[in-house]
């Protein structure tokens, strides 16, 4: 195998730290949910914030996007986030259904 020119410092230690933080965040999520610390809406918000933090760690470090050039980071992430956020437009309709009294 030919070696790929590394443009950043690849230390195993930082990946072990990221892995440990991911496990810790998972434990926090499970503790929050299992003990039903929050009401459903706040629970969802808390879990989503934790999931986004975990995503940043996985995409940035494990998938190495942190070490790519700015153009790649911005184009990839803005594109997918924009498309995902566009899906949110339907949530207002979901909440409205509850007011319609449909059985």
């Amino acid at each position, binding site marked *: *195998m*030919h*070696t*790929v020119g*590394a443009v950043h410092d*690849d230390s*195993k230690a930082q*990946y*072990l730290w990221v*892995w440990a933080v*991911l*496990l810790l965040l*998972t434990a926090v*999520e*499970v503790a*929050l*949910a*299992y*003990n*039903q610390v929050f009401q*459903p809406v706040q*629970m*969802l918000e808390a*879990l*989503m914030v*934790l*999931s986004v933090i*975990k*995503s940043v760690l*996985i*995409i940035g*470090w*494990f*998938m*190495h996007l942190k070490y*790519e*050039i700015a*153009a*790649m980071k911005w*184009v*990839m992430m803005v*594109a*997918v986030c924009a*498309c*995902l956020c566009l*899906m*949110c437009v*339907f*949530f207002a*309709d*979901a*909440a409205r*259904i*509850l007011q319609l009294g449909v059985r």
Partner: protein
Amino acid sequence: MADVAVSHGVAGEFEPSLFGTYSKKIGMWLFLLSDSLTFGALLFAYSYGRISNPDWPTPFHKESITNATIMTGCLLSSSLTMVLAVLAARRGDRSWTRNWILFTMLFGSGFIVLHAMEWSHLIAEGMTPFKNPWAATVPQFGGTFFTLTGMHMLHVTIGVIYLGVVALRKKFLPIILAIWAIVFFMTPADNVFHTGVHVLLVGFVVAAMILFLKPKDYDAHDVEISGLYWHFVDLVWMFIFPLVYLMSTRVQG
């Protein structure tokens, strides 16, 4: 191979990549973006149904949550071993590249087995894609659950086969067949594994076509790209786990 910007004195040839990296990696990233929209659509559809239905069941008791947490640990650990495989490939260590990929496959297979067992328990309790025993007015609970987790499990299975091809190449083909045969002939006909294992047959055919029609030595680039796919599979689970499992816990008073 235009892995780096090379000038051959002819305008337009081998122009530097817009994203500053090799084409295969950009191709995989673009595929992952499209796949994330697929999962995003499924998760949004699930969330829409959940929000608009106040009677959504919450059946996941302690054993289910414990199982799902172990599955999450398996996937996170598999991401770590995959990163270590990529590092080994970069420094040219073929043995440890293969070994770390095999560890990744082991964790991935553990995830699949645990998840299929979870499915078996839920099916035994009476859950199908069209009905569930906890809320008769919410028939879509089963459909959304099996679709979301089934789609993800399929991606994990494809990922394990993909990694096996990269790590072992043609030596992996008899291994896939052996696993298929063992699972198919040693599980009862109504078992989830008995039906689901046929995915391995499809994987065997596709892998054989690739390995015989386009034989090549998979290099560090290929390991890195397979790693991107694997981390994506882990990333999707980071959203499915809280939205499907943690938001539906049944905690006994």
